[in-house]
Structure formats: structure tokens, C-alpha cells
């Protein structure tokens, strides 16, 4: 489903954030990436989503190499790839429903959506996905009034309205309390299994990785430290990831 090969990211200041990184995520699989600060986790997601242009390497999604595309062709090819962030990144003054329905805009051209309109079909889909994340009763509420956990669920519903086949999550529980963090990870686990999504999630919470991931990938200095089923990941290997940061 999602495959990264030889991904390298060298910043203009010469810092190598990713050095020939290889990774694949199958449909229905939840892969968690662990690593210390500055290890290259976020750069990995930003390259895969093509927010950043990698210096070298391939990003295969549905048989198309995103790394080789630009402009309109990249936009089209990236449609099945959704992303959620540490902060929900909702438009605070719009309703929850409008925020969720906006996830489907990429499928619509024309003046109606260009000037702020939302197709009825997307509104219906938005309501369905809001139900999927357990918040249909908040549809009419302004997004700026939501709690952190609710906002993150709405962001996930927006990602689902995009009809993705792969979902990238950049520290989606970093600003949530433990209970809300568990809820979000349970939801991601459920979506991977039920919607057959390939989920690639960057986390700092080691216990959540053990609890919910199918596989855990360790990253250190832009290189893969390990890639193992979560049950097989030695505690010592994880500790080493963060030790190198402290050193």
C-alpha cells in the first residue's frame, strides 16, 4: 500500500534528517514510529506526505511514486493519503460539520466549492464519519469550542471524508490527557482494521506503541534502528533510541 525506499532528506544547512530510509505499511496495518527528538520522525512524515521534497528516494502509494510528481499530478496522486497532526488544525470559526466535509473538497472542482460551498454529498459523508468517531451530536458546534480530544476526533473524521487508503499521524496524542490519548489510539487501531487503512503514526508514548501497533519502527539519526512486530520489540532497544538523544 505505502512503501518508502531509500528516502533521504538533506536540509539546505547540510543536516541529514533521513538517510536512505526504507519502510512499508500494508493495508489494515498500524505502524508506529518511535524515536527521540531530532531523530527524523517528523521529517519522515513530512516527506511521505510531500510537504517536503525529499533529496532522494521513492514514496510509492497505490503504485505511483509521489516523490517524482509535482503540481496538479501530485495533488491528484496524494488524494488517497490523509494526515492528522499533533494539533487538530481545524478552522476554528467554522462548524464541526463544515470542517469534516472540507476533507472531501479535493474530489470537487467548479465554482461552487471554490467560493466556499460544500456539496450535499460531502455533508452527508461528513455526518457519517462524525458518527464513526462518536461525535455526530457536535456537528453544528463551532470547531473552536471543542476539547483537545474532541478536536482530534473531528480531524480524524475530516481525514476519513477524504476517503483515504493511507493515514499519516504526526504525534496525534501529544497534547492529550492519557484517557483521550488511549481513545484516539483505539480509534486509529479500529480504523486500520475495519476500513483497511494503512496507518503510519509517529508517537513519543512507548506504552501506546506496545499497546496498539502492529509493528514498531525505531528511528535514530535518520536511520532505521529496528522494524519489528510490537510484541517482539525489546525494551532495551527502545531505551537505546532515547539514550542516544540524551547523549
Amino acid at each position: 500500500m505505502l512503501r518508502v525506499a531509500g528516502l533521504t532528506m538533506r536540509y539546505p544547512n547540510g543536516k541529514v534528517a533521513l538517510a536512505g530510509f526504507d519502510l512499508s505499511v500494508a493495508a489494515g496495518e498500524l505502524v508506529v514510529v518511535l524515536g527521540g527528538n531530532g531523530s527524523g520522525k517528523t521529517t519522515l512524515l513530512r516527506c511521505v506526505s510531500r510537504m517536503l521534497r525529499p533529496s532522494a528516494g521513492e514514496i510509492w502509494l497505490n503504485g505511483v511514486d509521489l516523490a517524482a510528481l509535482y503540481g496538479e499530478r501530485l495533488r491528484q496522486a496524494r488524494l488517497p493519503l490523509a494526515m492528522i497532526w499533533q494539533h487538530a488544525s481545524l478552522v476554528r470559526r467554522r462548524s464541526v460539520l463544515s470542517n469534516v466535509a472540507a476533507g472531501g473538497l479535493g474530489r470537487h472542482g467548479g465554482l461552487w466549492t471554490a467560493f466556499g460551498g460544500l456539496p450535499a454529498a460531502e455533508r452527508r459523508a461528513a455526518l457519517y464519519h462524525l458518527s464513526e468517531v462518536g461525535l455526530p451530536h457536535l456537528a453544528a458546534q463551532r470547531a473552536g469550542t471543542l476539547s483537545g480530544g474532541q478536536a482530534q476526533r473531528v480531524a480524524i473524521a475530516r481525514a476519513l471524508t477524504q476517503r483515504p487508503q493511507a493515514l499519516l499521524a504526526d504525534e496525534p496524542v501529544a497534547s492529550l490527557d492519557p484517557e483521550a490519548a488511549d481513545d484516539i489510539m483505539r480509534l486509529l487501531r479500529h480504523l486500520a482494521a475495519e476500513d483497511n487503512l494503512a496507518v503510519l503514526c509517529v508517537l513519543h508514548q512507548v506504552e501506546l506503541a506496545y499497546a496498539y501497533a502492529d509493528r514498531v519502527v525505531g528511528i535514530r539519526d535518520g536511520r532505521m534502528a529496528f522494524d519489528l512486530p510490537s510484541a517482539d520489540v525489546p525494551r532495551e532497544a527502545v531505551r537505546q533510541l532515547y539514550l542516544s538523544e540524551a547523549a
Partner: protein
Amino acid sequence: MSLDAAVPRLAERGWAAALALALRAVILLLLVLVVVQSAIVVHARPQDLVTGVFGMADIIRRAMPPDFAKIDLVWWPALETVDIAIFGTLGGIIMALPLAILAAENVTPSRPLYYAARGVIGFARAVPDLVWALLFVTAVGLGPFPGALALSVHSIGMLGRLFAETIEQMDMAPIDALTLTGARRMQVFSHGVVPSILPALTGIALYRLDENIRSSLVLGFVGAGGIGFELLSAMSLFQYQLVSLYLIITFIIVIAAERLSALVRARLA
């Protein structure tokens, strides 16, 4: 710290304090010099205020009571004044918004367009609205239309700059998130940028409308219509009771616009 070591430090601090005091004295002297030279340049003569009191009192006496019998003469110029400001502000918004998008660092499509837009905004602001009014009176003749055009063009300066600053201070995270859903540029703009900044832009536009109502009163003095034009005519004809009536209506319009604008802006905040 021993006493021997502390003594030189205290001496140093004494010199530093003396230097700071001297610097303050120099700054104070400079400020006094600036005030004195400005008084000389403007030929400030306080004695004229005393002798002029009788002239002012005479004008006020002749302006009282206001000639309310001629109130019918006031409605149309009053409406004209408000409409000059409304048209001028709307014209300014329509021209300033696209310029602000080009002039906002975080959304501008290219650097040359950014500098061009900043240049236009700066020029519109640098030229006073009275000068714009004189130019437009020359171009399209006397009346309210050149006044409205002058306010439109001059408003680009303030509106363009504040709109651009609002866009630059906008939280970009929802915009990036929308872009990554695959939304097109116009969709990101209408579904992400506009809802995020609309309340702030509305507040700025209302503040400008309030300013423009006050400006449109003055523009009448150079032939650009409204109450200002009628006020000048009445003064030229020594109709001081009519002048006082115009001034009362002007006061009511300015205060009403200011209160209304402040009220709506407070609700938007």
C-alpha cells in the same frame, strides 16, 4: 566579596550612574530644543489667542441659535457624506483585499508581486486623501463621486497593510491541513483562509468606515460634495446659524458612526 574588591566596583558604578544622568540631561535638553524650534517655526503667539477670543466669541454669538428651520437643507448633504464614506470604504476593500493577499508573506504567489503590491499599498497611503480628492475633482469634476474615489484609493493604503498583517498572523496549521486533503488553491482560500480572517477583516473595514465618514466631511472643502461642501459655502456666505446646524449634524453623524463601529467590532472580537 572583600571590601578591597568591592570599592573599585562601587567607583565604577558611580561613573556609570554619572554618565547615565548626563545622558538623560542631554536628551531632555534636545527635547526642549525640538519644542522651542517648533514653536518658532509655527510662529506661536499666545497673545493672539487672548486677542482672538473676542473674534471667536463674536462668531459663536452669530452662530446661535442654530437655524433649525433650514434642517431640510441638511438631510441630502448628510446622506451624501455617509454614502461617500460607504462607497469609498467598499471600493477600498475590493481593491485592498487582492493586494493584501499578494502583499502577505505567507500566501503571496511570488516575490516580485509581493514587492509590487507593497509598493502600491505604500503609495496609496503616502498620498493624503485631500490630494487624491483634488486629483479626482480635476479628473471627473465637482461632486460626491470624486470624494468617494479619493477615499477608495486612500483606503487601499490602510486596509491593504492591515489586511496583509492579519493574513500574515493567521494560524497556518488549518491551511496546511486543508491543502493536504487535496483541496485546490481557491478552495483552501475560501474554506480555510476566509473564515479564519473574516472577523478581523470586518473589524478593520468598520474602523476604516468610521475614519472615512470623518474624512468625507473634510473632502467637501475641496469640492468633493457632502456636508463639508455645504459647510464651506455657508461660511463663505457668513450664514453662521446654518454653519452651526451643519456642525451639530456632523457631530451626530461622527459620534453615531464611531459608536456603531465600536459596537459591531466588540461583538466580532
